[in-house]
């Protein structure tokens, strides 16, 4: 991985696509300190930060590809969100219990599910809990590593709707790593294409199909043209 330059604007949703092994995940993991870059620096609001340390730990939140594995089996859904609130000392100690419930409720984790541990929740529900935990930290940027890959096919639509709603309501900046362009069409406003550890395309989503020039980008455009299932229930698209 060398000479990568990438920016995410305030409140912008950026999609990062590329083949497996291209370094997408490594790049995302560098931003939260799960991997150490050899050189270069990462800035947040113009100030250089050390990923995973100090306030940067709170401001950049990371969502794992497998939501079930990213939740501790020793904590309930509510406990996981409480851990974030307590850890970052957010709100007064007395109000944390109720605000943790509120975060979970907002993301569709009902009170009867909040006491359950991850193994008693489905993959989609675990992802909601992981999202609630990340949002509770009050971050500036949310980094999502393949948020759909570990989910069942029919759960994916719900996950996309959830992320859309989240972005609408919080205006949170997001960086979404994905191997598939199709779901990003509903989420990202800008697409970066990563090939062989370099960014080869940086283009707004609405221009991608017409103007993207790199041959890898064209390959992704071709995956979109596969015709949608004919005759299935009328396609009222997700982001109307």
């Amino acid at each position, binding site marked *: 991985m060398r000479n990568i330059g990438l920016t995410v604007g305030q409140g912008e949703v950026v999609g990062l696509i590329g083949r497996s092994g291209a370094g997408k995940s490594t790049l995302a993991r560098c931003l939260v300190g799960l991997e150490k870059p050899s050189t270069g620096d990462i800035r947040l609001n113009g100030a250089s930060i050390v990923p995973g340390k100090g306030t940067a730990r709170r401001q950049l939140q990371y969502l794992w590809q497998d939501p079930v594995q990213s939740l501790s089996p020793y904590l309930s859904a509510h406990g996981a969100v409480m*851990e*974030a609130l307590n*850890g970052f000392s957010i709100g007064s100690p007395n109000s944390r219990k109720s605000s943790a419930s509120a975060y979970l409720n907002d993301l569709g984790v009902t009170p009867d599910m909040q006491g359950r541990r991850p193994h008693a929740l489905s993959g989609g529900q675990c992802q909601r809990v992981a999202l609630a935990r990340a949002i509770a930290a009050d971050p500036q940027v949310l980094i999502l590593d393949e948020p759909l890959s570990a989910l069942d096919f029919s759960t994916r639509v719900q996950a996309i709707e959830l992320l859309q709603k989240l972005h609408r309501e919080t205006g949170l900046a997001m960086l979404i790593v994905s191997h598939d362009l199709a779901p990003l069409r509903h989420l990202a406003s800008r697409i970066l294409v990563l090939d062989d550890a370099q960014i080869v395309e940086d283009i707004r989503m609405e221009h991608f199909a017409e103007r993207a020039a790199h041959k890898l980008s064209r390959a992704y455009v071709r995956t979109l043209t596969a015709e949608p299932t004919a005759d299935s229930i009328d396609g009222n698209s997700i982001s109307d």
Partner: protein
Amino acid sequence: MTFGIFLLFGFAILALAGGTSNLPPPEKMDLLSRLAGPSERHLLGTDHLGRDLLSRLLAAIPVSLGAALKTMAAILAIALPWGLISGLAGGRTDMVMMRLADIVMAFPTLVLALAVIGFMGASLEASIIGVAVAWWPSNARLIRALVLSANERDFVKASYLAGASRRRVIFRHVLPQILPPLAVIVSLETASVLLALSSLSFLGIGAQPPMPEWGAMLNEARPFFAHAPHMLIAPGLAVVCAVLAFNLVGEGLRDLLDKRRPYQW
């Protein structure tokens, strides 16, 4: 597992019963009935000094099992923090700590225990310390390996990134992962430690006479094997049962804590 627990409970009850029953005291000699076979007065017979074997066998339970448990506690007291710190710190600290453990491990365990006992003078306490010194490095290595894999789990890193302090991560997310396998290891290791202590007593450098201890009793019985085999069989069986009990409990714990379910596809 139930049988193992049953055996251990049996030992505990027998130890208590031995203290309160009207058996002759374990040190009381009766030179007139030396090397007597099992009889109504002496259920398991007597030894070469006419002491009641049953009484000595029961009095040895707290000594032998107690020594094994004390040794295991001492081993854990060193190995747990050693392995935990080594595994979590990583880098140079890890390397130095593990090389130190390796140096100790390079000596054959019993020889090292013998050296410590030779230095301190033969006694049960010395053999406890000797065995602990020789046994901790392998346990520290095991614990370090457990910590390393526990620490690599996604949810451990996720908890840290989501705000949990280092201390909370260690105590709430790493330690609970290593406790179940550790429980299995401890019960299996206790059995081998018990054997080691008994061997040392058998060699005459563990528990000293007249203290009743299974290994020491076996040693005392050795010269009289031909005409008083009961002296050898009783403590021998006791050791076998105790080791069996710890092993069964260990195996049972392993089955109980092993989370793999048979019907997963």
